[in-house]
């Protein structure tokens, strides 16, 4: 039995590796994720990068000399405002414009609330950092003056501030990073499904379409050996795709200016091993599931349609996790795909989860894979599958 499995495996490997286009697409597919990741983070980092001098466009600078001095003291560069500033803000070319009305000075001296206007476009993420910094500067100026006025009247400024809000940010840099990095589990799972897809299709639906399944089953080989040999080929190629994907993510994470975003991801050897221990068992199940679906299909095209639909299902929990992280329970790790996505997230967050979730995840996948392989073997005994051709 073992020798027959090895024979089928060797033949499938040789056959598939000669299919250049399929091998290339299986290897290029997993690179899409790291590429998107790299582009996204580079872009975000350029928006959020701190230390960039704050440029403030001001209209009516002459009406508020002390405010201007305050802003300059705090590192802001004051610039001239072009006439068409509203259009420029809408186009994203200008972050914000501060307008000081002519009666600012009059109100200020009279002790009324003096109004300044901040013209912004809040739908632009890019401008958000500038707006936040400018707003806090303005509030700081206002608070400082208020405190001075109260002192001048012999009142403690504390009386005017009944409640002070101190923000305690529980999100450690690692946690925040993991939220953003949740894109990685999605693409690793994607790689587990993509890598072996073409082999699974070719090995079952392809055999049926070519009319080579009947001659194959004529050999004195138990059907289980045929199925396992083909499955192993699929698993190997899926694992290679996972390796490529993970390697590319590693490169990307080390190149992307993550620290500029104030996030730190755990991507050391232990984390990489943890991810492999999570996703490789998933390849067992993904390959077996694809073999089963592919056996039902009478042609390559038909199988491709089914399997691509199937590919969307495991993407769903990943998307969900990326948007709203949930509190994981132990039983969740048993669910193939979902459990793996949870687990990768936790590995990246640097949480010590122990061996149990890994074990449960692998067991869940192994059980699902065994079920799919058994069903596939049974299907191969059915006359409509052996002889039914497109």
């Amino acid at each position, binding site marked *: 039995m073992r*020798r*027959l499995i090895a*024979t*089928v495996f060797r*033949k499938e490997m*040789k*056959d598939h590796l*000669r*299919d250049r286009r399929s091998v290339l697409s299986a290897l290029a597919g997993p690179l899409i994720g790291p590429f998107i990741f790299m582009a996204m983070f580079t872009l975000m980092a350029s928006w959020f990068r701190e230390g960039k001098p704050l440029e403030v466009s001001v209209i009516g600078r002459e009406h508020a000399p002390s405010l201007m001095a305050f802003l300059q003291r705090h590192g802001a560069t004051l610039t001239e405002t072009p006439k068409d500033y509203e259009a420029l803000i809408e186009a994203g070319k200008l972050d914000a414009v501060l307008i000081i009305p002519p009666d600012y000075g009059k109100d200020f001296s009279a002790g009324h609330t003096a109004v300044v206007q901040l013209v912004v476009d809040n739908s632009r993420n890019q401008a958000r950092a500038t707006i936040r910094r400018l707003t806090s500067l303005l509030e700081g100026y206002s608070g400082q003056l208020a405190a001075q006025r109260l002192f001048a009247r012999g009142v403690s400024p504390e009386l005017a501030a009944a409640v002070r809000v101190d923000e305690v940010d529980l999100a450690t840099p690692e946690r925040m990073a993991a939220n953003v990095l949740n894109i990685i589990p999605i693409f690793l799972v994607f790689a587990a499904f993509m890598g072996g897809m073409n082999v699974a299709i070719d090995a079952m639906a392809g*055999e049926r379409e*070519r*009319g*080579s*399944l*009947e*001659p*194959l*089953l*004529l*050999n*004195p*080989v*138990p059907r289980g050996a045929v199925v396992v040999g083909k499955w192993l080929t699929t698993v190997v190629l899926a694992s290679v795709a996972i390796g490529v994907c993970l390697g590319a993510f590693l490169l990307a994470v080390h190149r992307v200016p993550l620290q500029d975003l104030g996030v730190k991801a755990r991507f050391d050897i232990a984390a990489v091993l943890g991810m492999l221990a999570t996703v490789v068992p998933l390849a067992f199940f993904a390959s077996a599931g694809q073999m089963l679906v592919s056996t039902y299909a009478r042609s390559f095209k038909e199988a491709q349609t089914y399997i691509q639909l199937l590919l969307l299902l495991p993407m769903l929990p990943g998307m969900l996790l990326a948007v709203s992280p949930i509190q994981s329970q132990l039983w969740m790790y048993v669910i193939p795909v979902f459990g793996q996505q949870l687990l990768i997230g936790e590995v990246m967050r640097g949480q010590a989860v122990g061996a149990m979730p890994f074990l449960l995840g692998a067991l869940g996948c192994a059980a699902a894979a065994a079920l799919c392989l058994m069903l596939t073997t049974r299907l191969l005994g059915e*006359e409509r599958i*052996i*002889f039914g*051709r497109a």
Partner: protein
Amino acid sequence: MIEVRNLHKRFGAVTAVEDVSFSAADGVVTGLLGPNGAGKTTTLRMLYTLVKPDRGTARIDGLDVAEHPLDVRRAIGVLPDARGLYPRLTAREHARYAGELHGLSGPSLDKRVDELIELLDMKDIANRRAEGFSQGERMKVALARALVHGPRNVLLDEPTNGLDVMSTRAVRTLIRRLKEQGHCILFSSHVMQEVAALCDRIVVVARGRVVAEGTPDELRIRTGKESLEEAFVAVIGTDQGLMQ
């Protein structure tokens, strides 16, 4: 040696094979002749263990096909209805793969594959990938794959279907040589000339039943017809689908 007793097979409401019995001896070419849809392919499929009979038994070298499918598959070489090849494997690799699945390996497999390449006159295609092979070349590869383990019993389903004259002659030569070596050969055809040219014994099948059996001469005498062609038409009741 093939013995078939009262085989039945239904697919849903359609009865494909209804009480088929015959035997095929070693060193004899037995032809299964009948129009399209007569049940020839289904009968062969039951013999090569991929279809389970509803009733009846079939034995190959004394082994029951339903009880010992793996042993039966070792004892037979089959050219099935489906002759698909792997486009990225060479002719030689096809034969080797089948040989390995039969448990052959090493020098004995190499020697056997070389013999077949010689026998089937396929030296020029031996190391070429199957993609783009002609019908005749594909047939040779399928035959090499079927015969690589040196089976005593050879089952061929419409072996000359779709072949040109030269390839047909090559297949006929092969069948005669296998017969000389004492193999039991059973082949199906809907082409009367084909069967008449090759067979020692003919089993005529129509509508899932055996309607006549015997040597060509016996068939002529039994029906009182001058030519084989008329004899066939007489036993089948119609000449539809029988002529090339």
